Structures are given as C-alpha cells and as structure tokens.
C-alpha cells in the first residue's frame, strides 16, 4: 500500500509499505478515505518531538471504511464508514471511564504522560498513522464512530480532531456570558476555537496571529476580531488596553511549541531545544488574562519543560486548564452542531492533495503557502 514515510526533519515521502495486520482481537483495519495534515504533524515534521523514528507513518485525522475486524470487535462491521478519533482509548481504564479518552492508560507503553495517538511518534505509542491507504485501529469498539449517512465526508474527517479540539479549547475556558475571549493562533484549531467560543455566550472574541491571510480568514469564518501581533509593539499591552486595562476574561493558547514573536523563547525553545519549544503564546496568554482569569491550553508542548511566568500564575490566581482533546466525549454534541448546520467544518479545507504528493503537501502547510488553512490528503483515486 501507499503510505507517508518520515525520513528526518523536513523530509517525508510516499512509499510502498505492507498493509497492516490485526495484532489484537479488538483491532480493526480501516481503508482510509480521507486524512488531514494537522499543526501537530508539523511538530513531528520539524523534528521537535523526541522519539520520532525514521520510517514511521504520520496521520491522526482520518476517515475510512472498515476492511477487517478482530474476533472481539462487536460494534463495527465490515464496510462501515467510520471517523476515527485521534486518541487511542481502551474504554476500560479509570481515565477512559471518567471521560478522559485522551489520557488512556492502556494505549502507550512508551510514556505515561500521554495516551496513544495514531501516527504521533513513539512518545505517543509508536502507532503507524492514517496518512496511508490502510491503518490498524486498536480498540475498534471504542473510538471509531459510524459516520451518519447524511454527513458530508469532509465534515466527518474534521470531527476526528479539529472540531473537538477547537470546541474543547473554548469549553475549558469556562467562558461566561459577556466575557472577552482572546485566542492565540489562527490556524485551523484557533479558528475553530474562535467559532466555538460563541456557543458559550461571550461578547467579544479576539484572535491573534501574524499571518494576514489567516487573520482575514478567521474574521470571516469565525465572525471574530483579528489582529496581527507583528503590527503591535507589545501584544500584552495591546490586549490590556483593548480590555479597559483589565485583562481578558479568558485566554486560549492554540499555538503550541513553535510560536514566534519572542527572541529569547525562540532561541531557547526552537533553535537550541533547551526547552520543549517556544512558549511565547502561553506566556502572552498568562500575562494578558485578568486576575482570577482562566487560561485554556490546547497548543502542544513537548517534554520535558517550558519556560512560563509561573509567578504570575500564582500572583494573579490564574486557573490553567489543558488537555489532549477527548474526542469521543465530545462527538455526540458536535455531530449535532454539524448536522444542524450550526458548524461548517469543511469550510476550513483549502487544499486537497493526493497522498502521492505528500512531500509537497507538508511543505505547503508548514510554510503557510498559497493561503493554506487545512489540507486533506486523498489516499487513492478510488474515493
């Protein structure tokens, strides 16, 4: 089968690989119909995530058709069209039982701090991902969800990560009616967080980035205010001023470890890897939120640590809320938002590229070329 193959930082190619096999009685093999490239994949692509082995296949956002099932799989049958949450979750451990499907304790032996994720390095379990014609899906009765017949397949693939992550980012913000919400990062996640923030009743939603075409897109798609931090002398002062010198009620980090905008953070986090990436956006979030405010973090940071102004978290009494998204927990609600037309996930898709051209697809998204917001890879001409 054809599959994306990692060769080292900034180098990927499409190769022929053996079709995966059932390795556990609760596995399924899925024939992939659509798969996206995520901002999280860029952290792998840029060599930022430890234990990203040459030869592995990325991809944690995919839909497909059930091709084969293990003997203990009961809910899925061959031929079902499914969307597959990016987290691998057993459904039985205490974390899964309490709805923390992004923190499963039985899907990743390589690290205890993160659950298993498809195609996301050995630090997240060493699973091959969905940027391939076929993929092995463990615990097939837990994650995979049959796509409602009337749902657009492009909407379905964005329900595997982008929509739930944007939603959870807003949800964790604990937004109250009338709040001012500031979102850092106008990538697919930040844009979706801005759109979903409105579900919680704020009076202002502000998005911050430095790429003009993304800010423009966000303004239209999420009906929010959008500002370029490169045009500000100091983003924190700008945000204080625009909130009557009070601070935002809620700040949300949708950037993660490859932030720009602060030389010291960039040098220590991205050039020398002395910390796990640059925590610039998180720093701005902590310093722009009001006293007693909430900072919600979905941006990904690697191990082992980052430099953030922790003293200010204490002194201002800030609540930090963060997690890998629990996709399965949110799916029923989000499927409803999509089916009722309140959310339009596929509106984020700007590029559709055959899997054969995976090298170009990664570069395009990584360099933010051709006004790229979200790229879908199509594994085979058949679909």
């Amino acid at each position, binding site marked *: 089968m054809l599959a994306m193959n990692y060769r*080292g930082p900034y180098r990927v190619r499409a190769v022929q690989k053996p079709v995966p096999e059932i390795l*556990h009685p609760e596995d399924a093999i899925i024939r992939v119909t659509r798969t996206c490239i995520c901002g999280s994949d860029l952290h792998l692509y840029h*060599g930022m995530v430890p*234990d990203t082995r040459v*030869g592995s296949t990325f991809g944690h956002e995919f839909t497909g058709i059930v091709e084969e099932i293990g003997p203990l799989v009961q809910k899925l049958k061959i031929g079902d069209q499914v969307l597959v949450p990016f987290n691998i979750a057993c459904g039985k451990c205490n974390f899964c039982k309490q*709805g923390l499907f992004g923190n499963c304790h039985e899907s990743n032996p390589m690290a*205890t701090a993160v659950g298993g994720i498809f195609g996301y390095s050995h630090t997240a379990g060493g699973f091959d991902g969905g940027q391939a014609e076929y993929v092995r899906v463990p615990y097939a009765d837990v994650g995979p969800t049959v796509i409602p017949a009337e749902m657009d397949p492009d909407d379905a693939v964005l329900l595997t990560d982008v929509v739930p992550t944007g939603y*959870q980012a807003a949800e964790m913000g604990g937004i109250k009616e009338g709040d001012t919400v500031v979102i850092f990062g106008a990538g697919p996640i930040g844009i979706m967080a801005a759109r979903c923030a409105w579900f919680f009743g704020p009076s202002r939603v502000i998005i911050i980035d430095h790429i003009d075409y993304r800010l423009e897109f966000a303004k239209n798609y999420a009906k929010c205010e959008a500002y370029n931090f490169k045009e500000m002398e100091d983003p924190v002062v700008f945000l204080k001023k625009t909130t009557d010198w009070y601070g935002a009620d809620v700040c949300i980090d949708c950037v993660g470890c490859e932030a720009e905008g602060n030389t010291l953070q960039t040098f220590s986090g991205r050039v020398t890897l002395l910390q796990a990436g640059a925590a610039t956006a998180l720093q701005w979030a902590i310093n722009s939120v009001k006293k007693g405010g909430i900072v919600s973090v979905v941006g990904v940071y690697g191990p*082992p640590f980052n430099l953030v102004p922790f003293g200010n978290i204490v002194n201002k009494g800030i609540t930090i809320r963060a997690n890998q998204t629990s996709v399965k927990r949110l799916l029923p609600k989000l499927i409803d938002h999509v089916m009722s037309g309140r959310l339009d996930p596929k509106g984020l898709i700007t590029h559709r590229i055959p899997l054969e051209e995976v090298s170009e697809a990664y570069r395009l998204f990584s360099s933010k070329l051709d006004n790229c917001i979200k790229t879908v890879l199509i594994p085979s001409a058949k679909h």
Partner: protein
Amino acid sequence: MEPSNEDYKLIPGWGMDADPENEPTYPMKKYTGDDHNRIHYERSDQQPELVEILRSNERPAITRVFGTSVPPSGFSGMIRRYAFQHSEDRYRHWIPLILADRINMLEGLIEDFKKGQIPNIIKERGLAVEWKHNRAGLIRKAVAVTLASLVLVSLFKRKK
C-alpha cells in the same frame, strides 16, 4: 493502595469541607471515584509482544495494546534503549532520544544508499511548492545558504 486503617477519619473536622462542586476539571472529567482504585481496573487482552518495545519505567507492565511501527535498531536503537532506562522526568531520557532521532536520519540515508536508492531530497523537502508559491523566498534562502557555505569553506582553507 488503601491505607490499612481508617484512623485518619478521626482527625477533627475530617472531610467536613469537602465540596464535590469544587472540580475544575468539569466537564472534561466525570468524576467517579475510580481514581482511588489506582491501576486495578478491568483490562482487555494482551497484545503479543512480537517486536522489541521500549517502555517507560514509570509503569509496572506494558499496556494492553501498543504500536509496532519502527522497532529500535542500529546505533540510534542503542541510544534509545539507554534513554528508556531513565524516567520521563529526566533530561537523560529526552536528550538521548532527540540525539537518536538525528542519528536515525543518517541511518535512513545509509539504508537508502544500501538499497541502491539515491534519496531525492529536493523532492522529499517538497521544494517544488516553494518554487511555485514562494520563489523569491526560496532564492533568497538558497543565496544565503550558498554564501554561508562559501564563507565557511574559505575560513577552513585559510586555517590549513
């Protein structure tokens, strides 16, 4: 582990101010109290370990499923095995893993050459799209890299 006696409940005021609403993880987490059962929960069958799997020393046993994508091998594999002797808390876990990743990249190139395949690095880096959508930027970068290498080469020659 449950404490063997419950004397702590005799401490004056024990549990008096407990407030189930004081739960910042709501609605992310549906608190069930199961946390206190620790790792004693029902589990799935065990996936057979057919390839070498490195595992965190912060857990007693392997997880019921795991990925088998690229088992450790070569020199990078030796470094990864060393890294996994140390917990996720330690730099000596993560720094060797990053080093192993870089060495693994070189091993990948060697493996290509051994197969008689010359890796098309320009293609792998997707430079065609930079050429199409960001030609000026690409040329600027190429010129900068060339100049920097020329300076390095001349410095090196002068030293000799």
